[in-house]
């Protein structure tokens, strides 16, 4: 099964023109948008642009830069392609992206009122969110669910439990838990840790770098080089991902300014015991690593809008004042 990239591309073309026009935006148009209550930060068309920025944002999803970056709302739906079916409770995620000369940043915002950041009990599952790219940037778009045998995908999965850290003693795991002593706590006795499973280690980054060639093939990449961080504010998660443009290894794309590729999103709601295929997923949408700078943000536009009449009136007053 293959999903043609046509649809995404067409939308992306449309969005290009919108952006070109945006360069010549007039105060009148902006005022009209504000008057209509439409947030220009969330274009309604699919297709994500990664804006150029000189100043690298902090590895913090609440960094001020993100409020200026237009986001694209990507619809999510239940995963119904393969066992185990599930998800669908988180209807959408807003995707934003910026890049510096050598790093790509992707930012997600989605609604999830329940914070689940531990997986220490049998029935506890953590919130998670992932972005997925074709293994080769700009290649034929692989199947959006975990790729396919001949076209792989690279998945960056942020996990709330990994961000929180692995519990190391029984008191952390179990209320009223108590153990006199452990005969050995050598890594050998943590089999998964001993064989290098990234689930089992106290990871340096809460984002796992994974590759897949179809269902059930998800495998950790050799280099865990995707950084990231998430913050739960109010009833939303905001997650930021960061990786160098250069590919860290096989099955992982190289990015550069001008790259046109695709990105898909998945989110897991821990409160609903979502994990694995039980998730809300999007289709692939285009990601363009463009040359445009981040547009002036809404606050500055608002300031301009409010200031403009005074400037104009001031000008007129000045002219009248200077008139003999």
């Amino acid at each position, binding site marked *: 099964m293959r999903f043609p990239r046509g649809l995404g591309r067409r939308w992306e073309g449309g969005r290009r023109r919108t952006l070109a026009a945006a360069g010549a935006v007039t105060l009148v148009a902006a005022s009209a948008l504000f008057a209509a209550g439409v947030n220009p930060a969330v274009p309604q068309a699919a297709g994500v642009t990664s804006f150029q920025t000189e100043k690298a944002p902090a590895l913090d999803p609440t960094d001020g830069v993100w409020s200026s970056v237009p986001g694209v709302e990507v619809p999510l739906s239940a995963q119904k392609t393969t066992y185990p079916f599930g998800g669908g409770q988180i209807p959408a995620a807003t995707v934003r992206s910026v890049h510096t000369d050598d790093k790509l940043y992707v930012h997600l915002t989605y609604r999830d009122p329940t914070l689940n950041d531990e997986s220490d*009990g049998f029935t506890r599952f953590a919130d998670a969110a992932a972005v997925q790219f074709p293994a080769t940037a700009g290649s034929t778009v692989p199947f959006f669910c975990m790729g396919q045998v001949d076209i792989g995908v690279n998945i960056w999965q942020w996990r709330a439990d990994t961000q929180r850290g692995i*519990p190391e003693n029984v008191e952390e795991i179990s209320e009223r838990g108590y153990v006199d002593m452990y005969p050995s706590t050598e890594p050998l006795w943590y089999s998964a840790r001993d064989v290098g499973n990234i689930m089992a280690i106290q990871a340096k980054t809460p984002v796992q770098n994974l590759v897949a060639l179809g269902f059930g093939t998800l495998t950790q990449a050799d280099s865990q080089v995707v950084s990231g961080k998430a913050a739960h504010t109010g009833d939303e998660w905001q997650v930021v991902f960061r990786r160098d443009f250069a590919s860290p290894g096989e099955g992982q794309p190289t990015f550069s300014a001008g790259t046109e590729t695709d990105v898909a999103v998945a989110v897991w709601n821990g409160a609903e015991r979502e994990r694995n295929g039980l998730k809300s997923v999007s289709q692939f949408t285009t990601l363009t690593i463009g040359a445009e700078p981040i547009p002036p943000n809404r606050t500055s536009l608002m300031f301009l809008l409010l200031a403009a009449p005074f400037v104009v009136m001031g000008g007129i007053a000045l002219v009248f004042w200077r008139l003999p």
Partner: protein
Amino acid sequence: MADVYNWHLGRTMSYPYPAGPGGGRQFAAVFNINRCISCQTCSMACKSTWTFSPGQELMWWNNVESKPFGGYPLNWDVNLLEMQADRDPDGQVWNPEARREVEAPYGQFEGKTIFETANGKDQVVTGYIPSNDDWKAPNIYEDAATKWAKEGVELPAHSGWFFYLQRICNHCTYPACLAACPRKAIYKREQDGVVLIDQERCRGYRKCVEACPYKKAMYRPTTRTSEKCIACYPRLEGQDPLSDGLPMETRCMVACVGKIRLQGLVQVGSDGLWVDDPRNPMYYLVHVAKVALPLYPQFGTQPNVYYIPPRWVPREYLHQMFGPGTDAAIDAYTNPSRELLAVLQLFRVTQKIIFAFDIIPGPKVADLNIGGQKQEIYDDTVVGLDSQGREIVRVPVMEPTFQRPGKLNSI
């Protein structure tokens, strides 16, 4: 879904993967419930070997629980029986008339298995994940009988009763844990049928915990993966220096104080049935003497630990737990044949796996009357042979006794 033949059920059933090619060996064990004293030496043998580290506190790959009230995790079996009854109303019944040697020794199960009642969407196996609290008290209701029988009890069924149930992973022929893992991180080894969770591939989804009807796949929060009984596979492989490279029984087996456990390896044919081998103690106890039965065969995983049912427990309860073979098994155990009596002596007399036995006839030593039935006891000798056909153990039916000279009154 594929069609596979489950001889416990005497029929084909649906399973997510086709049956293997056969031709390998299968780990199997017989537990004689009648003899267990719940000393938990087996549980400690396993724990002190494999599960003594942080994150494994709630984990007992081997546990011994009291029935009918106990359960580790709490109510694991009644919970699933209830789910099965809800999804297959009035369907969970057997037809014992359809009994056939080896292929269908217990007749035919007419209900649906846990694979057949699943919705196929979020579950391919009917099951649930027990909560942390369910795992916390492995011996709750220990020794709790159904009632205090003031008047005393007598066979065939005690009016106040309980019994111990010894449980490890069954290294099932059709493992539910394996069926449910979306990552195919669980595999069943060709050489001995041992079912393992690949600790490199597991991502802690706990679909195996949800699916295992016996609740023998367990989650470990310090590695965020699931772990389970590994059948002490280094011992099965003969890696323990004590066994000179020969297959050796697992830790929980050899530690058994009550001598209730015997473990072996059986040969499986390409048809999925046990290859005819009446000199193998496992084959003999299960297929010839029919004294040992699978636990909840109706779940459909074709488990490989077999139980000699407790004689004193009301039959209805045992029928649900061990299927329609129960009455014959209890009869065989109560009045053992000359051969069975000899084979029962092989329990816990060697650490090496016994692949075959021979019986050397001995003299008649007693005439007994058991439950109104006459029984002749012979002091035969049973000889256990290793995988190479060499003698590893020799035991008489009558335990040798020695009398101290009367004038020595101290030890």
